[in-house]
Each structure stands twice: as C-alpha cells, then as structure tokens.
C-alpha cells in the first residue's frame, strides 16, 4: 500500500517534471522559430546551434522520461535524439569552419563548439561499442551546459592573429579536445561503475547535495551585496566586453533582491545534506527518507531561481555602486553563474533518476568489473593523447615563443593533469588498485581536467588566456 503511494507520488512528480521540460523545449523551439523568421536563413549557424541544443535537451529529457517510467524505449529514443543533435552539431561546426576560413579552434566559443561535438561522438561510441547505453545521462547534460555557455560568448568570426597561423594550432587543439573528451568519458564510466558497485544511494545523496551546495555557496559568497542584491559584472553591449575601471578592477551592477532568492535556494539545497548528516549521527533512516523528499522541491526552487535570474537580468539597466548611473547587464558577463545554476539542476535531476530507477539503471549497465576495466582502457587511450597534446604544444611554443616550456599556468596545469593520470596508471598497474579507489581517482582526474580547461582560462592569467 505504501509502495503504491510512493509510485503515485513519483508519477505525479515525474509528470510535473516532464511538463516543465516540455515547456522549456517549446520555449526553445519558439525562440528558434523567431530567429528563422528574423534571419530568413534556415541553416544559419545560430539555428544549427539551436537545433543542437534542442536535440541534446530532447535526449536528456528522454533519459528523464526513462527515469519516470522505467521503459527502455525511452533510452533508445534518447540515443536517436543524440544522433540528430550530432548531425546538427556537425552542421554548426562545418558552418563555422567555412565562415571563419579556419577550423573552429581560435577562441573559447569555437573550442566549446568542437568539444561538445567530440563529447557527442564519444557518447555514441560508448553506447554502441562499449554497450553502455545510459552513458548519455551524464554526458548529455555536460554537452547541454556547453551549448548554453556558448550562447553567451562572443561569436564574431575573427581572422587568425599571427600567433595562431600555424598548422600546429589544428594538430595541438584537436589532440587537446580529443584527450579531454576521452577523460570526460572515463569520468562518466567511473560514475556508472560506482552505481553498479552498490555504492549506497545515500552516499550519492551526500555528494549531490554537497556539489549543489558548493555551487550556491560560491554564488552567494561572491555576489551577495549588502542589502540583498546580486552583484554581477557590468557589460558593454556595443564592445561586447566587461567594463573596467582600471586594470583588473571590474565594474559591478547590483540586481536588487536576487541574492535573497539565491540564499533561499542555498538553504533549501543544503537540507538534504543536513538530513544526511543527521541520519548518520543519530543512526536513524527516517532522515534519509526526508532527505530524498527534499530533492524534488529543491529542483523546483532551483528552476524557479534560474527563471527569475533570466527574467530579471534580461537586458535591463541596473545601478552600479562603482561607476555613476545605470549600466547595462547581460548574463554574458557572468557565464559561471548561469553554468553553475544549470549544472546544479542537472546534478539534482540525475540524482532523482538514480533514486527512482536504480534497479532499471543497474539492469541496463554492464557489470561493475567490465565498467572498471572500461574506465581503465579509456584512460589508457586518454594518456597518450594527453602526452601528444603537451608535446605538440611544446613544439609549437618553441617555434613561436622560442621556448618549449615556460611554466605558463595552462602548460603547468596540463602537466599536472598528465601527472595525475600517470599516477592513476601507476596505482593500477604497479600497486594493483581496482574498483572503488580507481574510480575515485578517475573522477578526481577529471576535476583536474575541468580546471585545466576552464579554471586556468578564467581564473589565472598568462599567455594562454585567449578568452578576451
């Protein structure tokens, strides 16, 4: 009887989620249609990118549908949606290549375009060749976040500056993208391994809640302005760049009251983690059930927060305490907040999928032993690619800057990534690490990859920072 009620509640929750996702896709389609009407060009790069976003979102939604119903046909259709998205993505890549006259490697926008493409290809390879049919549940959200991020970045085509006019650009960047995409695949496989290895759902709860908590904490801690407004970077619409008072000192605008909403979201997102802590402390499983019940409201609130952010921070003008008057503001100046919020929603949704459909997921995934070996084999592929990335980068740097190694932050972090994966291989081959420990290491390795790819560009400075 209790089971029936739980199923009912799940079904209701699932229907609500599907309704939300359906509305979001309808919204995207509407925007795409408007764009077509405005441009008159069906196959413009923007439209192709929109189509990519719609299909990848469709794939993610279908995985969610599988989460709600447990029917395997959803997974098959999700794979089809991924294929269609890849076709649109390839179209966008080709379009950009043709427009720019060089392969899409010369700025962050182009790098994301190529990386998302590589990730989709690897997803399909993992599904077909490795038989891991639900890998898209992890990789598709990453691809979607990538495409969303792209919508915010500068898209003008620039001819290559003298520095980038070299075949080594294509070789080095292709290798880097392939290497990092392969690392992303190993991360997804390691996560699947943890599911199959009977890692307790509570542990996933703690990790999910802690990650989403960290995202909201960093937003609140860095952007909370004294009276509850959200501090965001000001943005010059015409020059499409941040506004600086002096070197390294950016101008902020304050969007009132938004920070209170972020804080509320922060508290709600913290609830599951608190419940988990209480469950462990008092050894009482009721807290765990409470924690699981908190996830769904938290997703709704996160979605609401995101919508309010998008609506408030449209293209309006907001007061700036630093400079006089009101300054324009768009999300383009704070890509990380948007990325953080969208990622947080995806992480929570994935956890919900796990809670609702763990037995079905476990049925669809290969054995833990096979996943462990697949993770290892994927890293065996990624490691030589990482080595070649560094080697070609060094050779190119020698041709251009006269030095094959300058301890530039990007170079150093690429070397750190290489060392971390070298450590993984040592631990596995020589010390015999398998299973859980190897999976944790693979996940940690991917965190380093993310930092090398994004953190260095945006947080650290150096010759490699092609973001502006």
């Amino acid at each position: 009887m209790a089971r029936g009620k739980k199923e009912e509640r799940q079904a209701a929750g699932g229907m609500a989620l599907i309704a939300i996702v359906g509305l979001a896709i309808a919204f995207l389609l509407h925007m795409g249609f408007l764009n077509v009407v405005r441009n008159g060009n069906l196959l413009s790069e923007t439209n192709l990118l929109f189509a990519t976003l719609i299909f990848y979102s469709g794939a993610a939604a279908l995985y969610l549908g599988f989460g709600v119903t447990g029917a395997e046909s959803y997974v098959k259709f999700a794979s089809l949606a991924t294929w269609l998205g890849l076709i649109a993505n390839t179209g966008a890549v080709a379009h950009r290549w043709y427009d720019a006259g060089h392969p899409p490697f010369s700025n962050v926008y182009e790098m994301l375009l190529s990386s998302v493409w590589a990730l989709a290809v690897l997803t399909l390879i993992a599904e077909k060749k490795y038989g891991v049919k639900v890998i898209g549940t992890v990789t598709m959200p990453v691809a979607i976040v990538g495409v969303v991020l792209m919508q915010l970045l500068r898209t003008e085509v620039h001819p290559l500056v003298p520095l980038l006019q070299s075949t080594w650009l294509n070789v080095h960047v292709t290798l880097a993208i392939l290497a990092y995409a392969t690392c992303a695949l190993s991360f997804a496989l390691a996560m699947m391994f943890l599911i199959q290895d009977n890692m307790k759902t509570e542990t996933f709860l703690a990790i999910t809640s802690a990650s989403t908590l960290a995202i909201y904490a960093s937003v609140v801690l860095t952007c909370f302005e004294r009276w509850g407004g959200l501090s965001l970077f000001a943005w010059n619409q015409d020059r499409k760049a941040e506004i600086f008072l002096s070197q390294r000192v950016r101008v902020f605008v304050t969007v009132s009251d938004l920070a209170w909403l972020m804080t509320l979201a922060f508290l709600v997102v913290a609830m599951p983690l608190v419940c988990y802590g209480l469950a462990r402390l008092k050894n009482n499983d009721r807290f765990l059930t409470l924690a699981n019940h908190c996830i769904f409201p938290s997703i709704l609130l996160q979605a609401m927060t995101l919508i309010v952010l998008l609506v408030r921070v449209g293209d309006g003008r907001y007061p700036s305490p630093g400079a006089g008057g009101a300054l324009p503001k768009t999300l383009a100046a704070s890509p990380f907040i948007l990325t953080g919020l969208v990622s947080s929603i995806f992480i929570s949704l994935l956890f919900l999928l796990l809670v609702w459909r763990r037995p079905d997921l476990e049925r669809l995934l290969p054995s833990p032993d096979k996943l462990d070996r697949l993770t290892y084999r994927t890293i065996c592929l990624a490691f030589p690619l990482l080595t070649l990335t560094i080697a070609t980068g060094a050779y190119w740097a020698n041709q251009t800057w006269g030095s094959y190694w300058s301890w530039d932050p990007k170079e150093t972090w690429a070397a750190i990534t290489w060392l971390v994966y070298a450590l993984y291989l040592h631990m596995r081959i020589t010390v015999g690490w398998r299973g859980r420990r190897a999976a944790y290491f693979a996940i940690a390795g991917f965190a380093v990859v993310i930092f090398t790819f994004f953190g260095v560009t945006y947080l650290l400075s150096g010759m490699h920072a092609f973001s502006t």
Partner: protein
Amino acid sequence: MAANLRSIFHKTWRTFASIESGVVLLILVVILSAVGTIILQRPVTRPEEMQSTYSPQVLWILDAAGLTDVFHSWWFLGLVFLVSLCILAASVDRLPSRWRYFSRPYKYPDEGFRRALQPQKMLALVNREIDQEAGEEPVLAAAERALQSRGYNPERVLHRDQLGIFAERHRISELAVFIVHSSLLLIFFGTIVDGLWGWRGTLNLNEGQSSNIVEMRDGKMRTLPFSIRCESAGQENYADGTPKRWWSRLAVVKAGEDVDKKVIAVNDPLLYSGVRIYQSSYGTGGHFTGLEASYEPGEWGVWSGVVLMGVGLVLVFYLVHVRIWVVPVRDPKTGTLALWIGGSANRNRERLEKRFNDLVASIKDELNPTAGSAPREQLATAVERQGG
C-alpha cells in the same frame, strides 16, 4: 662499520626504488606546481603588479620562501632531481630481473607450470588407429599450422627428449616501461642542459640596422659570434585593421659576409648555428621590428625523449606480449596422447582468453579436417578435457 654503511646505502636505495617514494614525490611536484600557478611569479609579472597584489609583509614572506619564483627555486629543482633519481633507481632495480625474463624465453613449460597456468586446455586425442609412437609428429604439425594461420611464428622446442611448440608475439613489450621511463630521464636531461647552457633574449632592430648583441631578461648582454642585419620589415593587416602578418627580411653576417638570408614571420623563425631568431612583435611607430633570439642546446634531448616516449607508450598500451605453448602429453596409465595448450599475456587478460579460445578451435579444426576439405588422413578426434 662497513656493514652499517652498506645497510644505510641499501636502505636508501630501497627507499628511492620504491613505488611509495615515487608517488609521494609526484604528489609534491603536483602541489608545488599548482602553487606556482596561483601565486604571481616574478619572471612573468611586473614589479608594480606584485606590489599592488600583495601586502609588503606577505610579499616579503613569499619572496623569502621562494614562492614568487617557484619553478627556478632550489627546492623545486631539487624535487625534480629527486624524482629523476627515483625513476632511475626504480628502473635499475627492476631491470636485471626483467632483462633476464626478456632475454631467456621460457619455451618449454614444466609440469608444475602446466598445472597452474590459466588459460589452458587439454585436448585428448582418441583414435585407436593412430600409431601412438608416430602420433606426435602429425599432431605437432597440425598445431603449427593452426598457429601460423593465426599469425604466430611457432618453433619446435626440445626439452629432455620431449618435443613441444612455443610461439610468442611482441616480446619487446616487457621492456616497454623502461623505454617510457628512460625517455622521461632523457627529457629531464635535455631541460637541464638548456637550463645550464641555453639562453633567451630580445634583439630589436630598425630597418637597415644590424646588431650582434642580445639582451637577456635579467638585463645582461650577450654577444653573438655573428650579426643579424634587418634589411626590411613590415606588417600586413586584415581588412578590419587587426594584424595579419609581421615579417622581417634578415641576413646573417659573419666576418663581413652574408652567410644566410631569410624572411621570418611569427611561427617561422631563422635558425643559424643553433641560435633561433624569432619574430615576436612589431613596432607601431617607424620601422622597428621586435625579435627574440634563443639558444637551446638541450633541445634535441627533449625531442628525442618525446619521440621515445611516444614509442614507449605505444609499446606499453598497444603491444601485448603473448606466449603460447603446445605440449603433447601422455597419460601415464593408459598411454593415450593428449595435447596440452596454454597461453599467457602480460596485460589485457580478457582479450587473451578470447584469442586463446579461437586458437584452440583452430587447432581442433586442423586435427579434425571437415569432410569437404582435401583428403588427409584423419589424425585423431580431439576431445576437450579440462585440467592437466
């Protein structure tokens, strides 16, 4: 006293050759490198920026600890040196036994080995018409044919009047790890040579001007054994005004004569006598071209190391050392002939098992040719039997 000294040396050697030391040192390198990217480093930061980012006290502490120039500090270089020592010790420690394993292939498996090896299969050959004495030769020939058809190169092995077959592939894979680690040491060696004897500096010329003096980053001047003369230089722009190409027409002058000429551009330097001249920038006012010069004698160590590492990684990840043994054995009680087949690989066991099963099927096929094939005496009916 001598024994004490020897035991100290022995313990030190053991520490350096152990995996734990290597892992600890690598983790330290990772942490310190990360620190070197987060704290502003003096060689690439203007002094004003250093002073505006850190308070004087903090800056004094960072300077004193060497954290403002991590990658040239003695403790970082010492750490890299220790890592090299570890790699060397670990390799030297393991090389003798691995070399023995590599150079003395184990071609005939004794009974104990045969009992324990996995995967293995025993094919009992049951056919009363077979002359059990001559039975071995055609059976061995069949196994050899099967191995050859699968791409192996089988050889007959005689061990104490017993005949057997041994086939292997990619023996070099056993030494692959040493190749990878030696390549690392070669790269380190190259960078050390460059650190000690290499140099980099700037050389700015006006059109028509020549110079043989290069200014180093620390202000010192270096005189080259030849001069560089800039005949002309220019900049091409794209339609929107952004730079497309910076170039300089250069001539190398030695003892009054022009010994080399080249038009250099960004990504396309001039190389003369080991020194590279780069196009690094272009002055906006007047015809002023910004060149850089560098000398890297250890460069070849680095690139050979990189190529060697590429080779080594291919050997480590993609070439598997596979060994196959085929030994005819007689049941001591009944005297019937059976064929023991065993396989081994130094990595990727699941692939070996699949290949091994395919090989056993091939051998069975060779022993029991089908009715439609060319007439050949049926040697025996091969019946699988587990164990040995």
